[in-house]
């Protein structure tokens, strides 16, 4: 067989898609033969067919970009605040030891429940969505940033010192790149929670992008529409993961 063809056929992306197609096929049969009641799970084919209607009636595509935008803004904010705070917790051991435990505890708590508070402060607005997404996103980034910086090999720091680098260069050229893999672990976890929170709040306050559509479809008992809009949420998550994977590869090629 042609090597190129073989490479495409054995690519992980394709393998993943094939498994997905297989799953959809099995589900299709299971629902069609009433093994799974249609009231609970929509037939994959019906779900698929619901997309044009969703686009026409609910502007699915616009909602997709809206949720994506909210996530990007919340994640951007989480990075902007999480990384410097992580650095602060690394630099000042007292602050680090004092706050890391609290942050981890706060992260374990369901911050979604804070939404009435933000609703009072900012109303049903994009600000509420961004802030609710920001909170669980920034925490793992700050924690992992501290851990990553603490884990930098002392030998690499000595290399920098022996070449008389400035503190600034030490951070940008040695500590940060060395900590990138650990920080990205935090980013991946953070992005996930940011998305979950944003969609959940959209759902709860009936405002914004995909969460609002899921809620609308759900209350109409439109099962295919509900599943189709959930798939759109999954697409946002996939896109985010892919983007951050690319950025990581760019920052740390190996």
């Amino acid at each position, binding site marked *: 067989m042609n090597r190129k063809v073989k490479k495409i056929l054995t690519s992980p992306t394709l393998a993943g898609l094939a498994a997905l197609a297989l799953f959809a096929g099995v589900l299709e049969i299971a629902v069609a033969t009433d093994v799974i009641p249609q009231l609970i799970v929509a037939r994959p084919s019906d779900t698929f067919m619901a997309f044009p209607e969703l686009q026409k009636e609910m502007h699915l595509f616009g909602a997709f970009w809206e949720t994506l935008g909210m996530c990007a803004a919340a994640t951007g904010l989480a990075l902007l605040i999480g990384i410097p705070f992580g650095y602060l917790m690394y630099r000042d051991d007292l602050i680090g030891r004092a706050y890391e435990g609290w942050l981890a505890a706060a992260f374990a708590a369901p911050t979604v429940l804070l939404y009435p508070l933000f609703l009072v402060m900012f109303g049903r607005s994009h600000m509420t969505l961004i802030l609710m997404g920001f909170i669980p996103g920034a925490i793992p980034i700050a924690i992992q940033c501290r851990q990553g910086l603490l884990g930098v*090999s002392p030998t*690499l720091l*000595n290399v920098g*010192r*022996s*070449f008389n*680098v400035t503190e600034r260069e030490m951070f940008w050229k040695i500590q940060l*790149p060395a900590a990138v893999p650990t920080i990205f672990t935090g980013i991946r976890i953070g992005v996930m929670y940011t998305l979950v929170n944003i969609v959940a709040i959209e759902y709860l306050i009936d405002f914004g992008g995909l969460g609002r559509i899921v809620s609308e479809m759900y209350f109409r008992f439109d099962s295919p529409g509900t599943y189709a809009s959930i798939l759109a949420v999954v697409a946002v998550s996939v896109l985010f993961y892919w983007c951050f994977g690319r950025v990581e590869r760019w920052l740390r090629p*190996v």
Partner: protein
Amino acid sequence: MSGTLEISNVSKTYDAGGENPVKALDKVSLTVNQGEFVSIIGPSGCGKSTLFNVIGGLIPDYTGEVTIDGHRIDGTHRDVGVVFQEESTFPWRTTLNNVAFPLEVQGMAREAREAKAREFIKLVGLEGFENHFPAQLSGGMKQRTAVARTLAYEPRIMLMDEPFGALDEQTRLLLGDKLLEIWSTLKQTMLLITHNITEAVQLSDRVVVMSYRPGRIKRVIDIELPRPRSSEVITTAEFGHYVGDIWNELREEASRGMADAEEKLAAR
């Protein structure tokens, strides 16, 4: 260019959290003249790396004094370059960018620093691997990258902590030749830590034998083999004489070190 290094009465004690502090160096004094090649040999744990960290300004709390050309040094110093014992290449940089690192932080323009880095890469025999990342190199190649990086910094005093530790004997001998070649052109003051007696005799003007705990200088042996030397020198009778002499000094220390290690293991 000068680079006379004077170490006088340097002591260093690590107090590992209060209980049984380790006296790593005890009143070590040594003068290394400009352009001289000195090897330091001694059992594992005798304080060789600690001595380098003191000279390199990487340990703040020691007693005694280190001077370069008569000036007391305090902290890191532009004239001192260190090749570390542990893995020290930056995994996120290619060989080229690793070697160019010290030039980059000196603010040298990209083209100039890359051209210079390529020279040093060639010097350590890594031509063709410029765009490889450390993960794609063997242990010995990574060490050579680190050597090239410190060479590119052009220190007047070069401290090398077992740079050829991960190499087989043959490659080690050939790289020794290479190192002598580099040294004869760049004329730095060289300090080399090694566990390999052959390597020490092959390369050095003097070999410093250190004792095990507390780390002291036990004996300094002048190697009066003619220069320029190549690895062929190891077949001569004189060479064998020096090796035997150093081994006699080391044997006692090494067995003390081993007994100590065994005792510690048994105590666990």
